[in-house]
């Protein structure tokens, strides 16, 4: 079984995938990034062995990212199984069959974004490209700001589940050494002073 953890956004998600990539279980919390991660994983695993752990490495929420990535790393190290980093925006983009603008929460009204065929970026709601509908887990206020700026949010019912999207991204993702797991920031660390 492969465990996938994404606590990088305004919602937190865990999924358990079978070796063939089919989803054995998934849970998406509607609230903030910090939830009973260890309990959630324990209940979902039901003691089933893990062959690898995949974690969303951002860009995204400051606190959430650290909680999920370090828990996933500790779990992988403890079980001696590989750790696989997954870019947060790639997971959101993979939820749609059509080209979309993947977004994730950057705080202070800003969002990280990834448009098809472009580089990821950081922008205010009004600066986002509007050629594509947007997919991503944002705080309600941020999502309202996007909509007010003219961005169209893709209808949730037309999207793949988190687990199914993560399975797609995992197909091309590579494991890394335990000491090579890097969080993706796009903001200068100096801004945290």
């Amino acid at each position, binding site marked *: 079984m492969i465990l996938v953890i994404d606590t990088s956004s305004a919602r937190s998600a865990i999924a358990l995938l079978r070796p063939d990539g089919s989803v054995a279980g998934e849970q998406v919390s509607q609230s903030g990034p910090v939830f009973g991660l*260890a309990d959630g994983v324990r209940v979902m695993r039901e003691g089933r062995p893990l062959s690898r752990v995949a974690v969303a490495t951002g860009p995204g929420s*400051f*606190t959430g990212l650290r909680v999920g990535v370090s*828990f996933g790393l*500790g779990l992988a190290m*403890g079980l001696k199984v590989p750790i696989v980093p997954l870019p947060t925006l790639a997971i959101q983009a993979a939820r749609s069959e059509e080209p979309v603008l993947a977004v994730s929460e950057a705080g202070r009204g800003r969002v990280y974004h990834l448009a098809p065929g472009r580089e990821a970026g950081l922008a205010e709601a009004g600066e986002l490209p509007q050629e594509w509908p947007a997919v991503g887990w944002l705080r309600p206020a941020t999502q309202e700001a996007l909509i007010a700026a003219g961005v169209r949010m893709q209808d949730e019912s037309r999207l793949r589940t988190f687990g199914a999207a993560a399975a797609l991204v995992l197909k091309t993702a590579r494991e890394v050494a335990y000491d090579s797991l890097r969080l993706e*920031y796009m903001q200068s*660390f100096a801004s945290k002073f």
Partner: protein
Amino acid sequence: MLTLGIETSCDETSVAVVEDGRKTLSNVIHSQVQLHAGFGGVVPELAARDHLERLPGLLELALERAGARPSDIELIAATRGPGLAGCLLVGTGIAEGLSAAWSVPLTGVNHLWGHMYSAMLAVPDLEPPLLGLVVSGAHSDLVRMPEHGRFEVIGRTRDDAAGEAFDKAARMLGLGYPVGPALDRLARTGDARRQRLPRPSLPGLEYSFSGLKTALLYRLRDLGDADEQTRADLGAAFEESVVESLLEKLDAALTQVPSKEVVVAGGVAANTLLRRRAAEVVGDRARLTMPPLELCTDNAAMIAAAGHFGARHPATVDPSLGWGG
């Protein structure tokens, strides 16, 4: 019983294995001094990233040096505060993951308690009740420890902590980060009698170091270009004022609440003058324990010890945790 300790509250990454809360089997510490040197102080974001990258290697090393397997570990103890939020989240997060992987209980540890418990590692028969002086970059606290896992603050600083005061003085004297050892070295070549500075004194068991800091600032301004020897003399005078002020209150506390055991711990307890003078001030009124230098700096062995003796606590991060938590 073996406890695995994890410490990541500031700029030291450390993993340790401790037996029965007393015996250090391994205590590996990685200092981020080099990483932050160019910035003149700890950069929280860089510190958190570095903890994440260093912990895997340190974990392996700590187990190897202790000759322990994961299945030997019966408790995991991780610092939950006080400290830098991002750094604490990395340490407690990895601890949560290991706890889930090994099915071993996890406890969140108060870093301040850890400094007091470093003394238990240094002296195996040390038991509360204790009187403690914990001096670090963020704290100058006089505490009573009536029993394991219980602490009562009886004296604290009104403004700067002792380490913070040393920090600011060292900067004024043109010393770079890490300033503690640099100031210690500078002061050793100076003579405090040549540049007297006021000794702060408040009633009761309270400290204040901000007036002393201002006095140094004005003295430097009045002197204009202070030469090397004058700066050393000023460093020595500043150090002496802080140390004597700390010990004056420790002396008073020892008179008010007599105790057979006294502990002086924390990063500033590595200071040469403080170590020498504390022994003189305490004299034969009590047994004085000052942990060796590697147990005074932030380290995971003290966290494992505190985790072993204290009550279990969820590893929820609290950056501004006080003695009560």
